[in-house]
Every structure is written in structure tokens, then in C-alpha cells.
């Protein structure tokens, strides 16, 4: 006897990773989309008339995000203006290929696309940066630059919100990472569904409670067009440990991903713990916990031929800058 869909009783074709219920294709689509709709409504992510930039990398998460955002916007009449926003880091053999996917998505979903490149914003491509710094610390540059690049790109298209495709697995992984690294400020922030209201554009994660496996399933059954190659420069070993742990834990108890997010949401930091104060960068005016933001610092290092300048802990960086007389 074929397995029946837990929702409608028809023939099931998959077992939901999140709840272990057998479901048919249609009911899975419906449940998947409905859950994201609920996340959006309950967290009051949008107001009618918002112009929303969808951070699109061409990967599975952002492709599904663009598809679902458009579908829900039409179905539930959110009245949002949706844009695709891509950052071109300038990585040959990786980003140029994935941008082709984004361009196809633009045509398939009829959404306007804006591409901002590191080269235009900072005068450096990642390929050029890797030539300077080597393969060890390059992700620092990429990560720091991307944060601002998304904001700047969104502002260029006059968007007032950014959505990213971070999923439940990513967030659980970040919770574990921040505990292992002792980063209490990020630990507190990382489970928030919306971040960065002050000084920068609000960023939301509609997939906060969506399992990575279900995103893959959705993309697979809907035959969505996405690009799946790991970045050629990405070595990040330490996050890899947390990632492997999450995968192992999920095998033992599938709900663990959400359980870790629940833990993260209900952590409260003791009142007497010192937190970094968020200010603004004295050079570019972007949010920063230091007087000069990391992006400006890294850029200064690159331009002055000492690319290692901004790498390392803030107090050590300050020391190097004092010695060389940079302000």
C-alpha cells in the first residue's frame, strides 16, 4: 500500500524533514509556503508599499526565496515592490557563473535586477584581493565588504528593506559558532529575525524557521533553476565544525535545528556584561563598533600596500595603526 499524505490522504511522495510527516507534492508546497507566510505575518516583516531587495546569489536559498516571495506577494497581496539584488565580488569561475543564474531568474520571475560589484564600490575585485592577501584571510574582506555592498545596492534601487535567504540550519549553526567563539554580542543578535535597523537598512530572514533540506526539496520538485558550487576561495574550517555538528544532531533528532533556535531566542545576557557600543564610522558613516569601520580599515590596508592591516582583533589592529601613524 502506498504511503498516504498526512494532510490530504493522497499518495505521498516525500517525508518532511522537519516533522517526519509523509506528504504529497501539492500539500508540501502549500505547507512550505504557508509557514513562510506565517513567519512574515507574525514577525510583521513588511508593510504595504515597502520596496524590498532580495539578496540573490543564484544559490538555492536565494532562488527559492525570490520565487516564494513573489508567489506570496501575489497570493496574499503584501503590496511589495520586489527587486533582485546581487553582489558581484569579482570571483572568476564562481560568481560570474552564478550571476548568469540570477539573470535567468530575473527573466523567469519578471523581477528587476540590480548588480553591485566590489570593483565599482571599492576599486578591488576579490580576485585582486586574493592576489594581495593569499587564501588565508580573504573571507574577512569578502564578508566585511558584502555587508555594506548589499546596503549600498539596496539604496541605489531605493529599497527600504533587504531580505536574505538565511535558513534555520544557518541560524542554528551561527548560534553554535558564537557560543564556541565566545562572541556574546553576536550570540544575542544572531537569532533576531530582523537586524540592523539603526543606521543601516533593516534586514530580514523569512526562512528563519525553514529547514535547508526542505528548501532543497522545494527547489527540486519545482525544478527551480539554481547554481550550486562552493566558492572557490572559501576555506572556513571553523564554521565547518559547527555545520557538521548541526547535520549530525539533525540526524539524531530532526527538531534539534529549531530547538537550537529556541535556545538562542530565549538566552538572556546578564545585565553586567559589557557589550560593544554601536556607533558610526568616522569616515563613511556606516554603523561600526570602532571609530573607523572594518571596511574602511581593510580598504586602507589594501590601498597602502599593507593588506594585513585590518586582520585580527580590534585592539591589535589599533596597535599596528598607532605604530604606522594611521588615523
Amino acid at each position: 500500500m502506498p504511503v498516504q499524505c498526512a494532510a490530504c490522504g493522497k499518495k505521498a511522495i516525500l517525508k518532511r524533514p522537519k516533522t517526519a510527516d509523509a506528504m504529497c507534492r501539492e500539500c508540501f508546497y502549500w505547507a512550505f509556503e504557508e509557514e513562510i507566510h506565517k513567519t512574515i505575518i507574525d514577525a510583521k516583516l513588511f508593510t504595504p508599499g515597502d520596496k524590498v531587495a532580495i539578496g540573490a546569489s543564484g544559490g538555492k536559498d536565494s532562488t527559492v526565496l525570490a520565487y516564494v516571495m513573489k508567489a506570496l506577494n501575489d497570493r496574499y497581496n503584501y503590496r511589495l515592490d520586489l527587486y533582485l539584488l546581487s553582489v558581484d565580488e569579482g570571483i572568476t569561475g564562481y560568481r560570474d557563473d552564478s550571476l548568469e543564474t540570477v539573470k535567468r531568474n530575473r527573466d523567469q520571475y519578471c523581477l528587476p535586477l540590480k548588480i553591485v560589484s566590489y570593483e565599482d564600490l571599492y576599486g578591488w575585485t576579490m580576485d585582486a584581493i586574493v592576489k594581495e592577501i593569499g587564501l588565508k584571510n580573504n573571507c574577512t574582506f569578502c564578508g566585511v565588504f558584502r555587508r555594506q555592498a548589499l546596503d549600498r545596492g539596496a539604496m541605489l534601487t531605493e529599497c527600504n528593506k533587504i531580505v536574505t535567504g538565511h535558513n534555520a540550519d544557518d541560524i542554528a549553526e551561527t548560534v553554535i559558532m558564537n557560543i564556541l567563539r565566545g562572541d556574546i554580542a553576536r550570540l544575542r543578535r544572531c537569532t533576531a529575525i530582523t537586524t540592523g535597523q539603526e543606521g543601516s537598512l533593516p534586514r530580514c530572514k523569512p526562512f528563519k524557521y525553514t529547514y535547508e533540506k526542505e528548501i532543497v526539496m522545494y527547489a527540486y520538485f519545482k525544478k527551480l533553476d539554481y547554481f550550486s558550487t562552493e566558492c572557490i576561495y572559501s576555506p572556513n574550517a571553523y564554521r565547518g565544525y559547527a555545520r557538521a555538528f548541526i547535520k549530525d544532531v539533525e540526524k539524531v533528532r530532526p527538531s534539534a535545528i529549531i530547538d537550537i533556535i529556541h535556545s538562542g531566542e530565549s538566552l538572556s545576557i546578564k545585565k553586567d556584561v559589557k557589550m560593544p557600543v554601536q556607533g558610526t564610522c568616522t569616515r563613511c558613516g556606516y554603523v561600526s563598533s570602532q571609530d573607523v569601520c572594518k571596511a574602511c580599515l581593510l580598504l586602507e590596508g589594501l590601498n597602502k600596500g599593507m593588506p594585513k592591516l585590518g586582520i585580527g582583533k580590534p585592539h591589535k589592529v589599533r596597535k599596528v595603526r598607532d605604530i604606522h601613524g594611521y588615523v
Partner: protein
Amino acid sequence: MCSIQEGELLQPKRQPSSSLRDRKCMKCSNEETVVIIRINDAFCKDCFLQYCTHKFRSAFGKSRLIRDKEQVLVAHSGGPASCAMLHLIQEGTSRRAHKKLRFSSVLVFIDDGVFHGLTLVERKARNAQVLKQLISSGLDVHAYAIEQVMSTTSSASLGLPVQAVSADSFEILCSFDSECKQLEALLAATTSDTSRQSLQHVLRQRLLIQVANGMGINKVLLGNSTTSLAVQMMSNVAQGRGAHLLYDMSFADLRSTSVTFVRPMREFTTHEIEHYLLLNQLGTIDVISTGPKGLEGLTSDFVLGLQADFPNTVSTIMRTGEKIGVSHSEIDIDLCCSLCQAPLDTDVGPSSALAATQFSEVVSRGNRQSSRCSSEATECCGQGDGSCQSSTRCELPDLRRSLCYGCRLMCKDLKDTSLLPASVQSNALQVKNRAEMRASIQNFLIEDDDAK
């Protein structure tokens, strides 16, 4: 998109690979090194033992928790940390101690053989071995069997006289047949190792509270080491118990109003404990060491594996844990979990992991029309005989509502929640009744605006 964020690439330091043997003690600089502790600190035997004693005493000194001549219960599992703790207490209270510890200790051993699947004969042999050693310490020793937590008799007596056991009286530990059967049924109905493990923790803690209450003692010393606490913290996070980290990690666990759990070994790593035992020529008493299973075992492998490569792992986890508090400053007994007795963390609003999970369950079990309604109203206890409607037994939804997030997860793996100890059922009923009482007088209560 690449999920690497700013700043996270500062990686922890790896283990320095230096040779250890030909170094002198870093403290007295003239004795041979016998142990390397922390990251790379070489200690000779005398300096290391002094360091241990000092660390143990200062934990009590700093907290000022235990008053002069107070009686405390020392929970002894037979494992290495318990053995080291017992030795440190004995040294600290002996006449030759420099600054004496000023409390008197009563040892308590809990026979948890049922959880390890031991036969009666094996349990008897183990109890005899452990208890003989404990009695030889000269302190009063009390012994209980974990299944006594299932007992329906008044919590104070637990069916055992409140007096120290002697060398020939521990046969009684294997005589709680009906309770033993109940516990075995409960374990058989638990479908995962992870939940069985957390059930063991919770039941042991409940029994210790009952024992301490029965003896009129309100401090229980536990032997958790830094390493085991770090593992426990990560595994608790993975089991949705993030709200209670303060209780699970801190020197003094204040979750129960009547009994405080104290963890004087929380600054000792398992590495230090091993060397402490070795240098004092002490062994561990208990021979069965089945490591943790399920999620906790997985987490243990993960943390210890990382620790081998990055020796700061355990201490960083501990430091993170120390910065985490609780959201409620005062414990409201009406809002405590009926199982683990920590404050409930389930009042979280619609945009939360808990609500998202409940919603997932509703949408994937069909019912498109009512998908917006709360899932709590439609549950049945699963008995299928209408016992949900009877008020004599605490029904599943009520029981579930009186549990914290982590204990709810555990009960999801439990086929029949009516197998839980009677005291849990009555706690849940009490929580429910108090909530109803409160609701009926709600309009006449003057609420403090800051309360929420």
C-alpha cells in the same frame, strides 16, 4: 550566499606542540614537571595539588553560600569527579588543613543501575563495591535507588529510614520491586536515547531534592567538572534548554526553592581531575562507565574532539555560559516546569521557534481551514479511550502545558506520559489548579507594571 560574516574568521588558537618533559614547574621553578594544565602551564606535584586545593576552597569562599557548621549533602556517583571532590572535602575538613572547610558532609549515593540496564545481581555487586568504599571514608552515607522517585508514598520518607546505611543494609536498595517495574516501563516507553538520558538527569535531580528535603538539608554538592558542564551546556542548547543555562551551569543552582545545588568542581577540567586522582593514588570507585548516549553523547564527542585541536574550546564555552542569565529575576512557582522545575520558557509569542514548530505540525497534518488556530486546543492524550475528558488523571495537554520547552521535547519521545512519576503528575495538576485559581481572581489582583 556565502554565510561567512564579518569578524568570524578570527579562529581559536590551535594546540601548541611543544615537548613537556624537560621543563621545570612554572611556580616554584625547581621541581620536575608532572602535569601540564590550562594551555601550556607546567606544574610540579606539590604546586599542582596546592593549586587544586586552593581552587576548591576559593569556590566556597567567593560564594559565601554555605554557613559555618551547616550540613550539606554530597552527591557521589562513584565517578572520577565525585571521588576527587570527596577527597578534597576530606582534606579540607581534616585537622591538618590550613584553612578548614566549615561545613559537615553527608554522602548520598543513588543507584541508577536501572538506567544502565543492569540485572539485580549486577546492581547488588556494584552497590556493595561503591558503598563499602564510601563508608570507609568515615562520613555518614545514605543510599537510594533511582526508582524510588516513582514512589507514591509521601516524599519525605521514600520508603527508606532516614539513617545512614551500614555495610550489611544495602540489600534494601534492590527491594523496590513495584517502583522498579514502573521505571522500567517508563524507560521502555521512551523511544530515544536522547530522551532517556535527559530523563535520567531530571529524575536524579528530583530524587536528590526529595532526599534533601526529607533530611532537612538545603544544599546538595554535585561533582560536575568544567568539561562535563561545557558538554552539558552545548547539549542543553541543542535540546532547547537555552533559557535555563544559568541554572545548569552556575556554581549555585537556585531553581528549586527548597534545595540549592552547588557545583564546587566546576573550575576543574577532567584532565586536572585525572591527575589529581593519579597523584593522590586514588582510583574511581564505579566500574561501569557507559558514556552519554544520544544527543549528549554526540555533543560530547563534538566538544572533546574540538578541545583536542583547540584547547580553549571548553573554557570559551564556559565563559560564554557565564555571561548568560535568566529573563525572570524571581522564580514564580506557578510558572515552573513540572519536571525539571526551571521557570517555563514557553510564553514566547507568535513569532518564535515554538509557535513555528506548532504551526508546522498543524499544516503538515492537513486541516487547511483551521490551520490558523492554536494547536493546543485540539490535542488528545492519545489513549483513545476518552480518558482525556476525565479529570482524575492529568491529561496530556495540561501536562504538556506545565512543562518547559526541553521537557516537552522529551515527553514527545514518550509513548505514554501517564508513566511519569506520580509526583510529576501532581505537580502538573497543581500548576493547572493554581492557574485556574489565578484566572478566577484575576480582576482583583493589582499587577506591577514592571512585572512583565
